[in-house]
């Protein structure tokens, strides 16, 4: 939403809060690609993107009236996205515990054409090795969130964000092998 000023965004959020369906639609259109990218970075699964992004926006519409400060809409939206993805990953983990899945179901490969380049594949592979919380941290940085905003999203201090970010980047570098053999 680069072309919209903070004032315009706050106004759009206020109208959406009052139940204006066209304002809600505008918000979805404005953020759908960023939320989808964030979901993909978090899950590494292209077949989850549409479903999880839809869940995020439905939660957004239903909870919008509880958002006190429209200026903090973006941080709030990405907190919803992060929590939705982490819930999904937890559910997935639980399913693996309770269902007798074979080893071949552990890592379902991406459908052909989903992985565009060696670097992208390496990044997906490296992200998959990290904890979901660290993936969220790195994806939020790429989303352009400041340390203060990330601290607010994660409900922690800026110093903790910096420390965790440093560790997450280290781990990502350790696992990032653009020409790894799979």
């Amino acid at each position: 939403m680069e072309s919209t000023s903070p004032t315009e965004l706050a106004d759009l959020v206020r109208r959406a809060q009052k139940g204006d369906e066209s304002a809600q639609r505008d918000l979805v259109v404005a953020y759908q690609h960023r939320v989808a990218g964030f979901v993909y970075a978090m899950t590494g699964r292209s077949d989850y993107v549409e479903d999880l992004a839809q869940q995020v926006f439905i939660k957004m519409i239903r909870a919008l009236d509880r958002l006190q400060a429209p200026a903090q809409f973006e941080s709030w939206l990405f907190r919803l996205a992060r929590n939705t993805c982490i819930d999904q990953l937890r559910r997935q983990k639980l399913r693996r515990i309770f269902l007798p899945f074979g080893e071949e179901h552990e890592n379902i490969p991406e459908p052909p054409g989903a992985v565009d380049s060696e670097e992208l594949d390496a990044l997906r592979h490296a992200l998959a090795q990290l904890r979901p919380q660290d993936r969220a941290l790195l994806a939020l940085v790429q989303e352009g969130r400041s340390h203060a905003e990330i601290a607010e999203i994660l409900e922690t201090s800026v110093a903790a964000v910096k420390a965790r970010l440093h560790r997450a980047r280290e781990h990502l570098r350790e696992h990032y092998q653009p020409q790894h053999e799979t």
Partner: protein
Amino acid sequence: MKPEEHAWRKLEAHASSQLRGGFADRVVRTARGPHEDTWRELLGAGARQLRPGFAGRVIRAARAAAEMPSLGSQFALSAATAAVCLGAALFLHHHRAEAADEHNLAVWQEIVAVAHDDDAGIGL
């Protein structure tokens, strides 16, 4: 050249022949971590997964979800129904017990009257 120097050179040559082309680039790339472009590519790949008409589908799904009764309202309705049923059962029970008491009392009064009449007839 000393024999050991010659051996070192051969060792180095052998070792370097094991490295695939573009080794330096790969090392630098790995050390730096993923490039900004790769991140952009990843986020873009995620964004491309949305089918056209996504916003419309979200709005329709949100509307359908809003029309569905919430868990709280379903619980409240169940609790109200249970309270009404309990009230009706208590009322019926009370009503029947009262009717039975009245009937029993009338029967006893009849028996007492008959007993009095009998006593009077005997001349007690």
